[in-house]
């Protein structure tokens, strides 16, 4: 009885359910891919974008993959969801949150025939890769543009949580801004949520009321940008091209492109070439791109394009020395660069940013 039902389930999940039984990567006919989301698909933010990635992968690979999404999986339920994905024949599983890193690390050795990929995780295992996008590259460009556009010389940053990813983003925006005008300032509001549009809008209002006239947002939703449009200032979109939300206020957006990475990795499993890589892709590799520059003068556009191309080519590096903390201690001198691990661990603000470390 049990076996029959299990085969029924596997069959309905995809042909691959009957295939692999815990071996290494070999050429397969159809691959079942699972994507575990920490939030709802409808959040129009982080989880939504990963689901869009899944769609793109399905588009690119067509019948060769069968992609499944499980949304709003809380940490206590993670182990079970992954186990169920494995039981139903999924051989490539993307766990899209740092909250899932420790449990993915725990589960990967238990399922040696399955390939795991954790987003924003720090280390790999033989069957667990990690991936992330160098969003900070986009931040640098945003900083440069903001410095050109801002009249009050103050950038407003709608931040989520004080984790290194956000702190290094703020640092990098200012780095870019200071390259144009060393007197630029920043104000930060922590929304303490990854997705809460109304609060993001309130945060944006507070920043604008206190004198910021260019808005950056770490959340993936359009609320701060809409506010910018309403108030007649400028802003940047995040995660997707947000021109339509703010035709007059939109300068550019960092547009996530998880889909091509997912398609690549699925193809690697299908071809038997999958390796536990540490992918931290930036503009150069296409992990994300900048939306077309809008509401900018031709000179500003060409400057921004030049900088974008330099970053993509690797000739301009946002984390080059000298880097100094707020308290004056030097992190690295001129001529050196922060390593990837150092960037990932950056939990201090640069000197010149008058925001208290929460």
């Amino acid at each position: 009885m049990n076996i029959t039902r299990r085969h029924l389930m596997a069959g309905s999940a995809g042909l691959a359910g009957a295939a692999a039984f815990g071996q290494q990567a070999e050429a397969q006919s159809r691959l079942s891919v699972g994507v575990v989301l920490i939030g709802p698909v409808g959040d129009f933010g982080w989880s939504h974008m990963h689901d869009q990635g899944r769609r793109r992968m399905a588009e690119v690979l067509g019948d060769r993959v069968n992609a499944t999404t499980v949304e709003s999986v809380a940490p206590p339920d993670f182990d079970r969801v992954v186990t169920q994905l494995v039981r139903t024949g999924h051989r490539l599983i993307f766990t899209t949150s740092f909250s899932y890193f420790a449990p993915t690390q725990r589960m990967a050795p238990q399922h040696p025939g399955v390939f795991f990929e954790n987003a924003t995780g720090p280390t790999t295992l033989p069957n667990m890769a990690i991936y992330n996008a160098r969003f900070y590259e986009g931040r640098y460009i945003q900083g440069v543009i903001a410095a050109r556009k801002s009249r009050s010389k103050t950038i407003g940053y709608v931040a989520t949580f004080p984790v290194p990813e956000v702190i290094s983003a703020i640092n990098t925006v200012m780095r870019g801004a200071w390259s144009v005008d060393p007197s630029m300032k920043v104000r930060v509001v922590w929304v303490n949520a990854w997705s809460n549009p109304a609060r993001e809008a309130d945060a944006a209002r507070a920043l604008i009321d206190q004198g910021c006239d260019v808005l950056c947002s770490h959340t993936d939703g359009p609320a701060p940008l809409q506010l910018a449009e309403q108030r007649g200032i400028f802003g940047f979109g995040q995660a997707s091209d947000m021109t339509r939300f703010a035709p007059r206020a939109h300068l550019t957006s960092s547009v996530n492109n998880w889909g091509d990475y997912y398609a690549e990795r699925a193809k690697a499993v299908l071809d038997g070439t999958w390796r536990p890589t540490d992918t931290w892709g930036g503009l150069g590799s296409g992990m994300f791109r900048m939306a077309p520059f809008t509401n900018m003068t031709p000179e500003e556009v060409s400057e921004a394009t030049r900088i974008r191309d330099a970053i993509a080519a690797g000739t301009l590096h946002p984390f080059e020395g000298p880097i100094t903390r707020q308290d004056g201690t030097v992190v690295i001198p001129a001529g050196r660069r922060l390593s990837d691990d150092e960037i990932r661990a950056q939990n201090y603000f640069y000197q010149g940013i008058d925001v208290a470390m929460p």
Partner: protein
Amino acid sequence: MKLVMERRTETPISLMLISPLIAVALTLISAAIMFALLGKDPVTALSTYFLDPLSDSWGLQEVAVKATPLVLIAVGLAVCYRAKVWNIGAEGQFLFGAMAGGYVAIITHGSTQGPWLLPVMLLAGAMAGACFALIPAILRTRFGANEILTSLMLVYVAELLLDYLVRGPWRDPAGFNMPNSVVFEAEATLPLLMAGGRLNIGTPIMIAIVFAFMLLMGRTLKGFEIRLVGEAPRAARFAGFSETRLIITVFMISGALAGFAGVLEAAGTIKQLQPGLSPGYGFTAIIVAFLGRLNPIGCLFAGIFIAITFIGGENAQIMLRLPLDATRVLQGLLLFFVLACDSLLLYRFRLLRGAAA
């Protein structure tokens, strides 16, 4: 002709047994309709929801693991609600318990631990939950402040406190600055009961507690007192039962159970402290308590059933591409039908001929 409702003087046993079954049947029918509207085959969908989670040992263990915190919290809430004390803050008490137990694991991390560690953690969690529940209790008894408001507001406070702690003082220094605490060492996690699953000692403890509370509510003076204060407060006062002491007692009981459930989750299934620790157990448990008709055994069955719907919902997402919202609608419908069928137990419907007086 008029349809009137009258209170029954007594409820036939047969009806008490049939009523939940009718509710479940109605839920299944409506769910089948909903699945069909969403474009899925109803029979496959229903079997994915309700039969798959029970189909093998691993599945059954998962149901037990999911149900354990729900039942624990619900039993405590049932005690409160019997006394008409509306503790809506079980979620906050759950988190507080997780934080306290987690703290013990964190400060002893890397140094000498022993078999004494786990009981201390569990005790700490229960006590912390009870203390946190004292706040709305005292605000009600000293100041008459409505406990619905106070306990609810404190949930947000507890969430933000957990967030602050795991991002700041309790963050794992080797954790790449991610907002997690250290992963608890083996001695700070609940031992598993059998291979091939995640069943841990939390579940037998939960069952023991269910039976303990059955005895408490059904056979002790305290249980009688709790029920009396809820159903006939004036009679209770005449009998000399102190309402103040009772409110504090039931709040502490439910807080302790919720806190205990919290540390069980932190030490059992997640093995570290994180901001997203609870998928809303404290609130789901309120539903479980009512589905279980506010008695411990009922909470056990209701908790198991709700756990099945959650797990079934995950399976439905994986195998049928049904959205999570379908699960929520199903749970809402279940609660509605159970409440509706419950009315049949309490009231009798009769058709009267002729005009009413």
